[in-house]
């Protein structure tokens, strides 16, 4: 019988203890993998889902709330700004593109985002590409004749079950202004997947207060300057104004990342303690197992097994437990990350990839096997140094 065969037979001999040890390793690894996948996924989701526009202009208030609401569709909207702010920016010679956005109601939890077709336009500097399939974009209708056409984000279409041609509204007061689905967007892996887009005149027409206002309201304006060096001046100018604030979306994300990094550091500390506990458990388990079978080891030695063979068998036992536990932990970690990602997507709209493969998985598995095998080193040395005569002596 090979050394590995002997090691596996030993493990089978104390099945419950071996399984419990492997489960503790698996739980530790699952925790590490799930935590890393989710924190990394949240960060990447924010990076991927961010806007290509450099400034978000909105009403005075929380800068983070403005960006989270307008770019990521989280949090509630700030008070309105007025249409002339957008018109002023559109005419500003420093501005290449200004896109108005108005947000308010929702259908089955998917927010209405009123804008112009410019929101979906492709520019050389733009990473995000919008493709309508099936259908078309809503019409750029005049303020007096709203078309009440809607374009659904991929996720909004999938979850509401709406198709091109369907008419929908939410709440009795909206029954007079049903929206007609004219297009469905392909997934952009961003908050736009969960939005219902419509034209500004349609939005103003549906809104009882906006209908009566002579100067129409907006939530924000997305701004792209012709040259970046004009940004600080634009930013400052819009901030010293009494009505508006201008925010760099990247600045808000960097602030969020600063907090995430802090949470990651705390998590790393907790995970280190978890790893120490798991390694200690493995050590105690192997130490106990070696102590219990002193006589068996002495018998093997008496039958001609060398000290090095005994050392290798104990290390192989440890290695086998960590490989099984580590492998199960990787699978478990991805499963926990999947559940966490579903929860995040439903509650916060952040789409993290729970199945992202990279260096993490082999690094964690290799680390677990090396550290786990090292945890078995002391019991292995103990078995190596065991005296045959002492341990084969009669028990009574």
């Amino acid at each position: 019988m090979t050394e590995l065969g002997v090691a596996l037979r030993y493990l089978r001999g104390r099945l419950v203890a071996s399984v419990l040890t492997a489960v503790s390793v698996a739980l530790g690894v699952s925790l590490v993998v799930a935590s890393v996948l989710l924190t990394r996924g949240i960060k990447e989701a924010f990076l991927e889902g961010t806007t290509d526009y450099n400034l978000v202009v909105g009403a005075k208030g929380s800068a983070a709330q403005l960006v989270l609401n307008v770019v990521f569709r989280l949090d509630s909207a700030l008070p309105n700004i007025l249409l002339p702010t957008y018109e002023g920016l559109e005419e500003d010679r420093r501005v290449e593109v200004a896109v108005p956005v108005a947000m308010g109601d929702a259908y089955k939890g998917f927010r209405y985002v009123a804008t112009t077709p410019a929101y979906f336009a492709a520019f050389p500097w733009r990473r995000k590409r919008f493709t309508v399939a099936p259908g078309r974009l809503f019409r750029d209708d005049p303020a007096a004749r709203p078309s009440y056409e809607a374009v659904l984000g991929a996720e909004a279409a999938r979850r509401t079950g709406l198709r091109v041609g369907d008419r929908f509204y939410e709440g009795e007061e909206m029954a007079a202004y049903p929206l007609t689905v004219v297009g469905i967007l392909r997934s952009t892996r961003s908050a736009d997947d969960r939005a219902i887009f419509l034209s500004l005149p349609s939005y103003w027409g549906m809104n009882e207060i906006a209908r009566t206002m002579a100067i129409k309201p907006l939530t924000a304006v997305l701004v792209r300057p012709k040259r970046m060096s004009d940004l600080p001046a634009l930013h400052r100018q819009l901030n010293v104004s009494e009505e508006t604030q201008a925010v760099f979306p990247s600045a808000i994300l960097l602030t969020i990342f600063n907090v995430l990094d802090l949470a990651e550091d705390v998590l790393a500390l907790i995970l280190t303690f978890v790893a120490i506990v798991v390694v200690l458990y493995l050590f105690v388990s192997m130490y106990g197992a070696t102590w219990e079978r002193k006589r068996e080891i002495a018998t093997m030695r008496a039958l001609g097994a060398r000290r090095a063979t005994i050392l290798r068998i104990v290390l192989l036992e440890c290695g086998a437990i960590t490989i099984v536990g580590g492998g199960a932990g990787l699978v478990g970690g991805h499963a926990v990350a999947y559940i966490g990602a579903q929860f995040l997507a439903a509650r916060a709209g952040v789409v993290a990839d729970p199945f992202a493969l990279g260096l993490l998985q082999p690094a964690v598995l290799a680390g677990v096997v090396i550290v786990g095998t090292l945890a078995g080193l002391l019991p292995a040395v103990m078995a190596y140094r065991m005296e045959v005569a002492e341990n084969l002596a009669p028990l009574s």
Partner: protein
Amino acid sequence: MRRPLRLAWSVTLLLTLVGGAPLAHGQERPRLTFAQLAESMRANFDVTQQIKSYAGREIEIQGFIVPAGPPDLSFFLLSRVSAMGNYCCEVPTGQDETVYVFAAKGLKLLYDPLRVYKIRGVFEAGKQVDTTYGVSMFRIRDARAEEAVGAKIFKVGEGTAPAAKP
């Protein structure tokens, strides 16, 4: 006994040379200021020969980070004035107030709009049109960034040397 002594001397000498190399290199890196950049501007997007002489060389400049590009900071503006909204009283005037900073990879740093950062990288001067970021006058490529504790940002008319006490 002599051989270990000689070996110890050799190791000490080697460590001194290796350890001293970055310092010597650091001393050669010129530090530019926003005041120098502003004063180098000439008509028709031209800059002085003196500032052009730094082009292609590794320089250092200090300023506030304006996260005008992606949040991984692979591109950002370095400005003399902080991007802290309406809490300050100066309106930046345009090209001379900013340097376009490009990092080979995204930078990992603790972003704070009120902190002064030290940026090191390869300097470029003169008009350039970028399809993504538009027209620029001054750029830094392959940039690295670190916080510059207690730094002062010099305006036009201010020198880099500390003012003499009366």
